[in-house]
């Protein structure tokens, strides 16, 4: 039956899905380590293949080189960290370290490593590997992103070995997101990468060519190890027979034998692969849910609503008062006056029909957004921010208060008689964004404001935002979620992603100064309640001052085949974050 549908749809059906029984898989059997972690899940059965698809291609398997989410996702499958992030509770859980003590100064963390853990090639894991990892990250020969994240004001952490299974890490200042950030550092095998580190070739290690020809040299402590990689085709991971987790019945995890990732051309192809039953899990965009659900019965899957996504869309005005090399201001002075007027921005916000965007463009699957965090970030979201419901009358009142006049011709003019008109830039690749921009233009016309739309390719647009600053208004999105520390570059007035006026030497406004202060305060305490209080205020100020005029957040959907057990769908991040715990009653 199944194969017939594939032909009907004219899609090349692939291996693994058809009705034939796969050969039995035998796994190496190694004794469980004494420091085994027992997963608190319903014990399952071994076997099965989990299939997913990913648009694009990994650029590397080396965490010191990786910059993109696709590569990072694959690296996370075979490298584990000292701590483990529970995506459902948003809490930090034991990983390669079973427990940790925090010193009285709140700067010293002593990690007690799990004993008996072995690398996927059978070599023992120890404190030396942790030391080696941090040594590699901080080495100036190997510039990488982690080095920046794992330092305070440019000063690195001090990492010391206490004994074979104990590591002490000291931060120069109190550093709030420490545990979460350390949890993101995949521990590297010294016995494998030590020589490359010595002779300066560490950045060439574990590149895509190595992954293709010597997959067994990519050694980790994660639930899986790389078995094969065929570019533009598929990546196959197999269960790591030395993995450090087991279920309550003493069966070593992961349950699945193989994890197959098909590499497809684009997101459309990935969605289609899931909708036609070729893959086991897929994140779905709200406008596609309706038709995909029609295939749910035939291909035995279910579409779960994860609730609001962590992605926010917003419009902002360029408030940069600077000039380019020739002395020409980035923004015309009279326009800068509008853009820096809070009432103008609030009026714009009141003039946007967000409910309409949700209903029309997102098929009703989303909600209006008022602040920098979406409700998906349960741990940090502040629901009590200022809201700007659709209210053209209120918008007109605010504009009148700010000195704008509506002329006989229905066009708005400022106090000096300048016509209110600006150009909104966005990137053309994202059709949802293009639709939002056209709605915005129409909404603004109701207020007498002329908006010209200019769609650029993403690179050109980012160049305008970050280098040349020669634009008036922009529409983009950011993916939020996670710790407030991750938003430093957005909220802090010196930040590069502080898009309305980046890289300020001193804060331009009192409220930006206050946000700077709050952001550095929240970074210097480990107490969640205190941090939460500071970050709530940041969100409130952002909504009051509306440097970003937030639009909507779409709901996130995930499709998953019915046959998988122990599914726990988190509001944020990867849908199958607990891949090691999944099991199935049927083999494929």
């Amino acid at each position, binding site marked *: 039956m199944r194969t017939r549908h594939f032909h009907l749809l004219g899609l090349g059906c692939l291996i693994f899905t058809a009705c034939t029984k796969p050969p039995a898989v035998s796994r190496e059997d190694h004794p469980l380590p004494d420091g085994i972690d027992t997963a608190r899940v319903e014990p399952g059965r071994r076997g099965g293949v989990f299939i997913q698809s990913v648009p694009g291609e990994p650029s590397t398997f080396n965490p010191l080189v990786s910059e993109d989410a696709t590569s990072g996702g694959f690296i996370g499958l075979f490298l584990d960290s000292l701590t483990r992030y529970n995506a459902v509770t948003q809490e930090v859980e034991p990983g390669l370290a079973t427990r940790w003590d925090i010193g009285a100064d709140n700067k010293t963390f002593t990690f007690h490593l799990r004993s008996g853990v072995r690398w996927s090639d059978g070599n023992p894991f120890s404190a030396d590997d942790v030391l080696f990892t941090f040594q590699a990250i901080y080495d100036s020969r190997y510039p990488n992103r982690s080095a920046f994240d794992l330092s305070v004001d440019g000063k690195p952490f001090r990492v010391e070995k206490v004994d074979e299974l104990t590591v002490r890490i000291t931060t120069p200042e109190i550093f709030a997101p420490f545990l979460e950030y350390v949890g993101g550092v995949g521990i590297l095998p010294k016995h494998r990468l030590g020589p490359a580190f010595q002779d300066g070739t560490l950045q060439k290690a574990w590149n895509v060519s190595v992954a293709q020809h010597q997959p067994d040299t990519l050694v980790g402590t994660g639930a899986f190890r790389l078995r094969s990689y065929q570019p533009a085709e598929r990546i196959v991971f197999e269960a790591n027979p030395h993995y450090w987790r087991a279920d309550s019945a003493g069966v070593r995890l992961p349950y699945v034998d193989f994890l197959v990732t098909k590499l497809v051309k684009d997101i459309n192809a990935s969605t289609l692969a899931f909708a036609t039953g070729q893959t086991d899990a897929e994140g779905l965009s709200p406008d596609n849910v309706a038709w995909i659900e029609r295939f749910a019965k035939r291909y035995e899957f279910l579409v779960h609503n994860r609730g609001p996504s962590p992605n926010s869309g917003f419009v902002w005005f360029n408030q940069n008062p600077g000039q380019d090399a020739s002395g020409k201001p980035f923004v015309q002075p009279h326009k800068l006056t509008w853009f820096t007027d809070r009432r103008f921005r609030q009026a714009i916000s009141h003039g946007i029909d967000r409910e309409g*965007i949700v209903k*029309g463009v997102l*098929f*009703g*699957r989303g909600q209006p957004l008022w602040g920098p965090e979406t409700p998906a970030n349960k741990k940090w979201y502040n629901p009590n921010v200022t809201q700007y419901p659709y209210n053209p009358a209120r918008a007109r009142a605010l504009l009148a208060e700010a000195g704008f006049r509506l002329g006989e011709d229905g066009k708005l003019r400022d106090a000096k008689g300048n016509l209110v008109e600006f150009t909104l830039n966005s990137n053309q690749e994202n*059709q949802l964004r*293009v639709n939002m921009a*056209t709605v915005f233009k129409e909404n603004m016309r109701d207020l007498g404001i002329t908006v010209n739309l200019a769609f650029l390719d993403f690179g050109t647009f980012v160049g305008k935002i970050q280098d040349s600053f020669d634009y008036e208004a922009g529409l983009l999105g950011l993916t939020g979620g996670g710790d407030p520390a991750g938003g430093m570059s957005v909220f802090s007035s010196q930040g590069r992603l502080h898009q309305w006026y980046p890289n300020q030497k001193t804060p331009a406004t009192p409220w930006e100064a206050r946000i700077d202060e709050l952001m550095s305060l929240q970074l210097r305490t480990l107490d969640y309640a205190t941090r939460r209080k500071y970050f709530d205020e940041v969100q409130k100020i952002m909504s009051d001052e509306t440097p970003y005029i937030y639009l909507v957040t779409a709901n996130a959907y995930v499709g998953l085949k019915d046959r998988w057990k122990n599914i726990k769908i988190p509001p944020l991040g990867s849908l199958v974050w607990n891949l090691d715990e999944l099991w199935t009653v049927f083999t494929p």
Partner: protein
Amino acid sequence: MGADLIQSLLRRPAGLVSAILLLLLYGAALFAPFLAPTVPSAQDLQRTYHPPTALVWQDGRLCVRLYRLVDPSTATYQPIAGQATPLRWFSEGPAYRLFGLIPAKTHLFTVEAPAVVYLLGSDATGRDVFTRLLYGAGISLGIGLVGVFLTSLLGLTIGGLAGYLGGWADSLAMRLTEFLMAVPGLYLLLALRAALSSRFPSDATFLLIVVILSALGWAGTARVVRGLVLSLRERPFILAANILGQRPTVILFRHLLPNTFSYLVVAATLSVPGYILGEAALSFLGLGIQEPSSSWGLMLGQAQDIKIFMLNFWWLLTPGAAIILTVIAFNLLGDALRDAVDPRFRLPGR
């Protein structure tokens, strides 16, 4: 020559039909603001992906059925049984300027708000596809005409001069055309678009695209014109003109070039589809006409989302049908013109 041409064209049914079709299309494009019930930017977020509204005869008048949104999550609409609202002919609607000059408010037909008439359904933000198709025709068809005019002008001048002057001018012109023809067209198009886009404001994209397409297209015309001029130059009537002592410019513009017109008319007709398709390709790739303007290529590009197919929003593909029709019509007309103009290609029995 003109009357003969039209007469012999009228005798060919395929040519006649396509000529009428093209006249209708260009007429529709010219009078788009009047024919369309609304303006292309008018959105209705409560009625996105609305199917085409059915027309019914009720109470002796042509009426539009009313619809109800049954399921917003799949954009499913259902006609409300027995309910319809009459079309109002020559009624007032959104203001516009006919030919970009004459302010007017009268539309061929509208319906009373809050009802809407979507002859070809609505798009992702509830804009009328029929209206956008009409306005888009102005751009898509206009690009063909303007482009062909520019190309013919360039091709005629450069080819004519090259053929008549010969020598170094000929070599220079022909090497240039060879260079242009050797460069892969689409890549050059994309490169030019990227290089020039920052110099043009977004509403001048239309002009930019025409200029790019013409800058690439004149080489072929120039080469053929040169060939024609080269052979005409040796004909007795030119020799006679030479002997009579006429000036070279007079010979070129009075005697040589008019004799290439018949070729030009046919070539131009046959190359119009190239421009229409070129614009469609650019807009489809997101490099051509941009929102909120409309063109057939842009509309088609926006319909390439899988959900359009899976949820069967077929009316969003109508710009594709319009492009196909236009291209076929131009090709048939071009064939008929060639038969009419060039007796040597005429088949026996005609």
